[in-house]
């Protein structure tokens, strides 16, 4: 019944084209919010109640298909629901100004694609049959493509969006190949057939195919190249949702495939661990050298995908060694981190979107001083920054803590090989943690703190309430998961039990003490917050009785400081950029001041970083292909006689081949 209402809501979305301009937003928002209510209710009842909701539907010419809502689907539906509520709410304020110079059809198309994106994601999460899943997946790609090209008049943005479309379709062909293999071996083309395929065939090959497809969406290195191009291009109300939810769809697919694995656990785990560690470190190293705040956030999404991947690979490693504890910890940590990342990354993207809307640029070197002009937006960005750096007392710490705990707990008693794997996971998590502190102290410190670095940044004003209210939801979730993680982790453990078929009973949850540990972590976090509040009031009381003066910042005796003397995003990370030069290829274009140059003349400075993998894996082969395809152009003569000749030759070839085939 609920499902029919859901379908009806979906079918109502195209009518947005006939709604009057002002009503478009409210029409779509009503549809999406009511669908969120329905899908959220169903997902929660599946996640907490434990029943798997199954329904047969037939989609046009794709034949009968099964819709199944198990715990894993339910978790990701909730993730998408939270993200879409924040995104749609934020869109109201953002699009109010952004759509003013767009036509009514453009606005309708944008709203329609947002709704289409949401519905296709929900369907991709519940459809099990190969064909219908691929249909939903494809709709998702196209809808997000249309959302991204809202500002497609700019050539550069259109190019980025098209590269997204192309790369997604390469992923699509990986799925197609994978499903074909599946069909050939089992006669069935659905995720449910994976189990029987994996039990009779080698697991790694098919896993690799699916990994290439889903990893493309999730942004695992080296399949990540679309991410840092598309996220900065997308309008502010979309990039948060893309990073928050769309890349998690890739993760969902990956977990779905992993849940059916039967053998080769060790190989797959080592493979995934290596890829994830590279993803995490590469993503964060490139995030550090970015000047564009949204590009920085995009690279940080890649890094977080790496952390999630590390958790997942530990879970598989646990399966390989029959270590249930490690499996539960790794899996729970990975899923919780996926949810957390979705929450704080959309918070970060949306507050960065507000800032770049206000300053008219995404370049951090032109921002600054926002903390006094846009205090609430800044506060939200700060909360997101602390959370994403995995610092207590917020939620990012909890999920990394769970992954760390799993690795540390399994260290003793494991074989030397396993210990080496666990330790490399721990060390890379530690490095990623330290590096993300550099990234986000830079992002917040340079873009929000200090003095404005440009005239536009000087004139910024706080954004409207409708662009702040949705961020409150994210912030509340961030704090709540930080303090009361034990409540949130329990259902995740059940998902681990369901997916990886381990005996994760309530007793395990209680006796092994995940709940007890997390409640103590929450307690320490609460003590920390209480200490800060207490010290704050003591400080307030004492300072009130002292003389307080305001003056200029200490300039070492220099009394006419200029905002351009501040540290910039490039100078803040220049030491680090030197250290990791092989990865970031940071190049600076400047003329140093010669020793005999007494009165230095005006000079310019240009710093540019390169994504090594992007240039070696995408750009170089593309250039090579261009060159060779160009040579093939001699066949394109423009004369109809030649083309008829080609057709004749082709037919002869087919005849010849079929002749040989019969032999």
């Amino acid at each position, binding site marked *: 019944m609920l499902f029919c209402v859901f379908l009806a809501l979906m079918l109502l979305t195209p009518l947005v084209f006939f709604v009057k301009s002002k009503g478009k937003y409210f029409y779509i928002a009503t549809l999406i919010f009511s669908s969120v209510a329905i899908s959220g209710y169903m997902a929660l009842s599946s996640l907490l109640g434990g029943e798997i909701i199954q329904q047969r539907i037939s989609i046009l010419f794709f034949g009968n298909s099964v819709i199944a809502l198990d715990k894993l689907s339910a978790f990701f539906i909730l993730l998408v629901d939270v993200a879409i509520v924040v995104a749609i709410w934020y869109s109201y304020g953002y699009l109010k100004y952004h759509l003013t110079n767009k036509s009514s059809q453009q606005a309708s198309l944008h709203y329609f694609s947002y709704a289409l994106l949401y519905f296709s994601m929900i369907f991709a999460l519940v459809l099990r049959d190969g064909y219908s899943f691929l249909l939903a997946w494809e709709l998702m790609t196209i809808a997000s493509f249309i959302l991204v090209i809202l500002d497609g008049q700019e050539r550069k943005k259109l190019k980025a969006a098209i590269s997204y479309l192309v790369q997604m379709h390469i992923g699509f062909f990986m799925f197609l190949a994978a499903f074909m293999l599946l069909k050939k071996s089992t006669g069935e083309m659905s995720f449910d057939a994976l189990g029987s395929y994996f039990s009779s065939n080698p697991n790694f090959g098919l896993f690799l195919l699916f990994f290439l497809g889903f990893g493309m969406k999730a942004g695992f290195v080296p399949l990540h190249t679309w991410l840092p191009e598309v996220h900065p291009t997308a309008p502010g109300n979309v990039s948060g949702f893309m990073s928050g939810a769309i890349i998690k769809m890739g993760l969902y697919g990956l977990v779905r495939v992993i849940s059916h694995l039967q053998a080769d656990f060790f190989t797959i785990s080592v493979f995934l661990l290596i890829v994830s560690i590279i993803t995490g470190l590469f993503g964060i190293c490139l995030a550090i050298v970015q000047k564009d705040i949204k590009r920085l956030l995009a690279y940080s999404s890649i890094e977080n995908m790496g952390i999630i991947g590390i958790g997942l690979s530990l879970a598989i490693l646990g399966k390989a060694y029959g270590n249930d504890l490690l499996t539960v910890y790794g899996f729970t940590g990975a899923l919780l981190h996926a949810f957390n990342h979705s929450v704080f990354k959309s918070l970060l993207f949306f507050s960065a979107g507000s800032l770049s809307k206000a300053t008219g640029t995404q370049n951090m070197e032109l921002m*600054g*001083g926002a*903390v*006094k002009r846009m*205090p609430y937006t800044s506060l939200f960005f700060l909360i997101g920054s*602390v959370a994403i750096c995995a*610092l*207590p007392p917020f939620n990012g*710490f909890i999920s990394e*803590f769970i992954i*760390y*705990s799993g690795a*540390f*707990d399994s*260290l*003793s008693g494991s074989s*030397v090989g396993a*210990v080496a794997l666990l*330790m490399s996971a*721990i*060390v890379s998590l*530690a*490095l990623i*943690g*330290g590096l993300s*502190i*550099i990234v986000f*102290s830079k992002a917040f410190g*340079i873009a929000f*703190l*200090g*003095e404005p670095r440009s005239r536009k940044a000087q004139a910024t004003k706080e954004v409207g309430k409708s662009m702040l209210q949705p961020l409150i939801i994210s912030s509340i979730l961030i704090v709540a998961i930080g303090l009361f993680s034990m409540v949130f982790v329990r259902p995740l453990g059940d998902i681990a039990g369901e997916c990886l078929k381990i005996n994760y009973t309530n007793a395990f949850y209680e006796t092994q003490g995940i709940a*007890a*540990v997390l409640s103590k*972590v929450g307690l*320490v976090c609460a*003590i920390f917050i209480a*200490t*800060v509040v207490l*010290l704050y009031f003591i*400080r307030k009381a*004492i*300072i009130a009785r*002292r*003389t*307080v003066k*305001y*003056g*200029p*910042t*200490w*300039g*070492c005796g220099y009394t006419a400081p200029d905002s351009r003397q*501040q*540290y910039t995003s490039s*100078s*803040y990370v*220049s*030491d680090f950029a030197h*250290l990791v030069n092989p990865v970031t290829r940071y190049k600076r274009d400047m003329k140093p001041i010669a020793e005999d140059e007494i009165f230095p003349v005006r000079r310019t400075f240009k710093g540019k970083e390169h994504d090594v993998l992007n240039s070696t894996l995408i750009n170089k082969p593309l250039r090579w292909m261009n060159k060779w395809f160009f040579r093939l152009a001699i066949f394109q003569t423009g004369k109809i006689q030649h083309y008829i000749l080609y057709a004749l030759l082709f037919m002869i070839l087919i005849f010849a081949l079929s002749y040989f085939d019969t032999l």
Partner: protein
Amino acid sequence: MLSFLLITLCALFFTGIVNRTRSILSGRKGPGILQPIKNVILLLRKGSIFSNSSSFIFQIAPIAALASTLVAILLVPFGKYPSVISFKGDFILFIYLLALGRFAIILNALDTASSFEGMGASREALYGMLIEPAFLVLLGAFAVMTGHTTFFDISQAFQSGGMHGAILGVLAAFILFNIMLVETSRLPVDDPRTHLELTMIHEVMVLDNSGFDFALITLNSFLKFALFSALIAFCITPPDLSIWIHLAVFFGVELLCAIAVGFFESFRARNRMAKNPSYLISISAIGLLTFIAAIVLSQYGDILSNVAQ
């Protein structure tokens, strides 16, 4: 709770002893041991000057930094007395709390729009990142060696680990001492006595803090000294001692650490800034060696001792 009281008590004297050691070694009489804490009290009574560029971050950051260290101390046990709150993986929270304090001070520096403080912040962020793995690898070594993942259980199992425990303890103490020097911004990474802003790290980050806030920041570094020395004591204290000997060992280690810092600072020059990353990475590398030693000892320890006999 005992450890919390002891560490805060030692924090009051630590910097005084460091300074006193240094002045004696350079042939001066020097100020009394209580002078640093008297300075803090003086600062608490002073008024404040805030930069016009600064915002609420500047008001909260010193508090957050101090609070993070105070809460981190709550997680450290003392001998047979467990810490106030103890749970599996408490040391992970410990490390991240210290990182939170660092994050707060970095933002505090960037909030003032000063290029000097930006420079300090940049260095602090980089060096903090490079030292963090050392700590985690060290704790990984403990976890492999003892099979436990709480500070308290590790100390119980570790201190009765015999010869292997002693070897690992000495290595761990060495690494912890180096981490302490980095975390408290002392030589050879940073020099608190330097007068040139361009060569400072920590001091330059707090140039604009004054009065009450500066007192909190100073207290924070006192506490970090005592905290890390307590961890060193925790690594090398032999098992099964009565509480009084334990106390004596604890105070002895704290005193020794303070004297060692003073000694070290009298005879060593600060690293060149460009050399610091390799210095910090080498500490992590020693940490990794410790870890490998721990694996070897825990897996093949019995064979090794048989061969030795």
